[in-house]
């Protein structure tokens, strides 16, 4: 590795300054504000504020709505991750085998990724709308009455499908790249030894894909927990009866709509801690078990 040595002590700081400034203004400062806010009780206009210590946190731990939101987030994140990764792996394996038309497939499959989350949300809102949607209409033909406006499980299914659909393209690209990096000779050797396609996949392909899979696992969990806000906002708005109210959406709703800055601040601090914990656990312990 080549090392650059600066003779001037100031220059490296100067070169770093823009990035440091951005980090400070857009990350550190708001995070510090959220932490400070979480210890206060304030009216909407910010005219009167009282320091209340840990009260906002204690109230959250005591609130059935917040515990429900944690549970919903867990179910949602697991479902989105499993569905989008499973499905994209299937597609990637299929595209990898038909190499001749792989480019056309790849292009088609990548399209959804270019769609903004809010647009995707509206799209699914239309497809699933119980009154004017095409899907409930088709389901009615086979005798199923779809109504995610009053059925919590159907609402969850809707946001999971909409969120997973968006992420499939991204996962697909990484899986295809991962698959193509696996030397064909390994699989050929196994085939000569008499291993069938399924056996070859589970004993050779999938283990060799594990770095990609691990990376995508982290990305997908983060995606499901934090980037699905727009999908939720444009389809179910957390309803019915908080059935799809994931933690990120609750932070927004309690803070911006409910004007409860203290609680919203405490919730974002908790989220921040969860992200830090997830990252530490995954990279400290899980990454060591992943073969590169």
């Amino acid at each position: 590795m080549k090392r650059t040595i600066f003779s001037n002590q100031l220059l490296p700081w100067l070169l770093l300054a823009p990035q440091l400034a951005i980090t400070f203004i857009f990350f550190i400062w708001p995070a510090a504000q959220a932490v400070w806010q979480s210890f206060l009780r304030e009216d909407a206009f910010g005219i009167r504020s009282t320091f209340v210590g840990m009260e906002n946190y204690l109230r959250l731990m005591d609130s059935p709505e917040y515990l429900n939101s944690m549970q919903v987030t867990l179910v949602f994140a697991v479902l989105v991750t499993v569905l989008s990764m499973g499905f994209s792996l299937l597609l990637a394996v299929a595209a990898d085998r038909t190499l001749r038309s792989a480019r056309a497939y790849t292009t088609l499959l990548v399209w959804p990724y270019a769609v903004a989350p809010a647009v995707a949300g509206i799209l699914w809102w239309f497809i699933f709308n119980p009154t004017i949607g095409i899907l409930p209409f088709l389901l009615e033909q086979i005798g199923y009455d779809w109504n995610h406006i009053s059925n919590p499980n159907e609402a969850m299914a809707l946001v999971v499908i909409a969120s997973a659909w968006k992420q499939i393209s991204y996962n697909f690209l990484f899986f295809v790249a991962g698959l193509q990096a696996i030397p064909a000779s390994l699989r050929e050797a196994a085939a000569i030894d008499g291993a069938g396609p399924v056996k070859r996949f589970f004993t050779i392909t999938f283990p060799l894909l594990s770095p990609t899979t691990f990376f995508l696992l982290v990305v997908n969990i983060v995606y499901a927990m934090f980037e699905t806000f727009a999908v939720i906002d444009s389809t179910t708005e957390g309803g019915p009866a908080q059935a799809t109210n994931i933690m990120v959406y609750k932070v927004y709703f309690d803070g911006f709509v409910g004007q409860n800055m203290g609680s919203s601040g405490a919730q974002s601090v908790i989220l921040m801690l969860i992200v830090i914990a997830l990252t530490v656990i995954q990279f400290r312990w899980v990454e060591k078990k992943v073969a590169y």
Partner: protein
Amino acid sequence: MTRIYSASAIALIASLGAANAQTEIQWWHAMGGELGTKLEEIVQGFNDSQDEYTVVPSYKGTYPETMTAAIAAFRAQEQPAIVQVFEVGTGTMMAAEGAIMPVYQLMEEHGENFDPAAFLPAVVGYYTDTDGNMLSMPFNSSTPILYYNKNIFEEAGLDPEQPPETWAQMEEFSKQIMESGAAECGFTTGWVSWIQTENFSAWHNQPIGTMENGFGGTDAELTLNGEAQVKHWGNLKRWADEGIFKYGGPVGGDNAPPMFYSQECAMIMNSSASRAGVLANATDFEVGFGMLPYYDDIESAPQNSIIGGATLWVLSGRPDEEYPGVAAFFSYLSSPEVQADWASFSGYLPITEAAGEEMSGFFEENPGADTGLRQITLNEPTENSKGLRFGNYVQIRGIIDEEFEALMSGSKTAQEALDSLVERGNQQIADFAAQNQ
């Protein structure tokens, strides 16, 4: 390139010059679509009528979005002079002493003629403090009414000129409609919180909360789990199970109007201000108008319905020279001509008695257009029917929707849902009181 720059610089200076000649007054509002266009037309009328002030309306999204935008702007000291706030935000705005300038005070200071008695009692009641001082300027008030499909009524063998008056008739008519195959469902509703809970209570002269529905002080408590409300929510659940009633979603109930327009449901209860939209979308059938149904076994029903919609709040902290302009603009807005024009266009209520008189010709030509007005003036408002005022009511509305959805999905009974609504709502009210101590 240089030429383009200098040209735009000159244009910029010119526009600054023009802005300096008149004092600009920012007005943030939540009127999108056709209502927004009409609103701009009204503002233009004021701007053309004098040359000291220019009112600049800006559309800021939905009611909650407009309100939170104004609050955020206030915290950043970038607030507009005027902001349109929906009726449930009244408690929050009122408590923000120091952030708002009460309208009665503003009008008095700037010598504008302003008489609260000129407004409809149901409107005045909602926006005055306990001393009878008006805090915000009524602009667009509405009340829920019943719309029905006359063609379906006729097909089902019902009298198309006779809307149901009681809930018993609602059920009976709906069954007849469904059995005859004229429509798939009897009725739907927008705004479960506003129409089926708050207005329902006022219409049956039942309290929504203690201390005159919260007008008496900040430590009031909700009493929405009374016998009448439990009965009604229970019925709605039963009707939903039987297919008579279809739920159209939380808040305004986005899915309700399409069910009525597509003739899936024969009736809808919605704001009087959706009249224009209903008429525009009812291309294949004739629309009838009726008052909200009531239970005839509840004494003193029907009482009077309560209003919704929004008022204009004046925020403090703007340059002094803007406020006389705001006062003059408010006088213009509440003049009978402007109000009558706005109300006949939109379906909002004419908020002053004079504007109502101005509209008498319009009402004659448009039968049913006065349903909302007749409904809120049906009786002198009582303690239970003059409106409601609780802190954090925006959040409580959300809780009402959630509990109603729990009822609809069958996870709670009407009693359980309303008990839990009261408990959670009271927590919000207590939080609000603590925040504003």
